[in-house]
């Protein structure tokens, strides 16, 4: 079995998750499983990809909040790195809980492992419950359409679902917008094989120039913005909700813009100075 890193275990002890004597929280999150997960993830985060996180201090240190951002990269690499940044960059660390694709819940091992790591299937009931329990929720409102973005579309945003906004209003949760950059470089999708995906019971299968969607060690960046608070009940008409969603979407687009400029500069510094960071 994988040996878990001591610094990871020390951080897990400082999470707000109420683990019982057996190492499970009331949702079945397992201390042992997240320890293994974060041990692997911190290697990927620090060594393989070198993720840079900006503005993590905008995330409230405790209490309910929703991380809302763009999808970048053909598989859940972005989600994993956001979870990683919340665990490794915040002090005390927080466990970001995503809303997983529903098809995953019928797959043996995958469903179990995701649930043990706090990533439950994307049901509004789960979102409301976790927020009311003062957890940190991570939502990609682009959904599966967002992960299906091809390489040339990597900085674009597809249509946002509006469900997250109603949940935020209903539970009075602040929204922390974030931009994820570099996922398209890590997994440069040239096409999505929908028929092949169907064969495996997934929505699609991303095809890269080297066929398999194995992420390359690209530089990734996450930019968190200031919390956005909207007043309401969640029962507003669709137009009102859509206008709020548009505000979040344009804020994320700005963060992507800021991020890509910085990356542009960084690439130049790299060539000029030869320093890796």
């Amino acid at each position, binding site marked *: 079995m994988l040996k878990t890193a001591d610094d990871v275990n020390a951080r897990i002890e400082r999470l707000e998750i109420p683990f019982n004597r*057996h190492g*499970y929280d009331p*949702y*079945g999150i397992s201390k042992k499983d997240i320890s293994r997960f974060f041990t692997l993830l911190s290697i990927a985060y620090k060594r393989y990809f070198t993720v840079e996180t900006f503005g993590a201090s905008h995330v409230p240190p405790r209490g309910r909040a929703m991380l809302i951002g763009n999808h970048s990269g053909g598989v859940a690499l972005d989600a994993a790195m956001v979870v990683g940044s919340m665990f490794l960059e915040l002090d005390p660390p927080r466990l970001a809980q995503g809303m997983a694709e*529903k098809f995953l819940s019928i797959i*043996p091992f995958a469903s*179990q492992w995701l649930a043990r790591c706090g990533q439950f*299937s994307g049901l509004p009931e789960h979102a409301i*419950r976790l927020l009311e329990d003062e957890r940190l929720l991570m939502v990609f409102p682009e959904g599966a359409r967002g992960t299906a973005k091809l390489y040339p579309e990597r900085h674009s945003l597809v249509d946002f679902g509006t469900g997250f906004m109603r949940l935020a209003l209903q539970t009075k949760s602040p929204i922390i917008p974030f931009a994820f950059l570099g996922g398209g470089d890590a997994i440069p999708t040239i096409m999505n094989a929908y028929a092949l995906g169907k064969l495996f019971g997934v929505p699609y299968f991303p095809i890269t120039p080297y066929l398999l969607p194995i992420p390359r060690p690209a530089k990734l960046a996450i930019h968190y913005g200031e919390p956005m608070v909207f007043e309401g009940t969640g029962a507003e008409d669709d137009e009102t909700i859509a206008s709020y969603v548009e505000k979040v979407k344009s804020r994320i687009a700005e963060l992507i813009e800021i991020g890509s400029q910085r990356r542009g500069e960084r690439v130049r510094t790299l060539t000029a100075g030869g320093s890796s960071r």
Partner: protein
Amino acid sequence: MKVLIPGIAGQLGRLVAERVLAAGHRVIGIDRRPWVGAPDGVSLHEVDIRKRAAEDVFRREKPDAVVHMATVTHLRDKSDDRYRINLGGTRAVFDHCHKYGVKHVIFVGRHTYYGAAPDSPLYHTEDEPPMAATQFPELADLVAADLYAGSALWRFPKLTTTVLRFCYTLGPSRHGTLASYLRGPRVPGVLGFDPLFQFMHENDVARAISLTLEKRIRGVFNVAGPPPLPLSVIIRETGRTAVPLPEFVFRLALGRFGFPPLPEGAIAHIKYPIVIDGRRFVEATSFAPLFSEDETMAAYLKSAPLPAK
């Protein structure tokens, strides 16, 4: 208070009867099965709840409250008889309660009402519809009985109706779905799935029912015990060995090699969790389980030790 308990001779019925008796109430029981060694003060009527003689008990005794536990919940009996007992019996109980001026009736139901499915949320609330019936036809009669009992809330407004949906029961009597599943030394599971299971000590179940009688609450309530645990942990803590099998092997192995026999629909219950939110009941009654999950599992292990190897 005079309390009538149809289904008194079941393991849980006996515990409830003893507790209600100890609280100073009169207990009358109806059951087809005998209860040898019933405590003094319990007047037993060995009749079928659906028969005229049972109605006669209502007529003569005029109970103040009824705890309806005369449902067949185990899955061994697949006959039409079971369907008739669960639905016909429930109908008879409510009709008699209405007719003979009973003030409070409690239907003792189960959390399996909500069903186990990959898309069902953790922590079901009482307003959720039953999703069990389609995937698990063996549960359809219990789901229907639960809904039928709930309909008394508007059909008989003068009768205070409580529908309780309990999570799994575990304890020294070794009765109940989960206890039967854990009976053998090796407990099968479906490889790659390890759902959360929610269970409470049988004494806490009896306490919750007796508390419902005292508080005379109206409506539908989930009754949950301590926080849930993964099935694998329950198997380990009760001294059993988990045997995770690929799903197709699991299906073949059921009922063979000392593994428990289960109907097709039950497989979802071994793969996906049914976890209920019991806050509404706690708010209405201030109920808190006396037995923790660890004490409950220890009590089960103590009463059901494994044969020495």
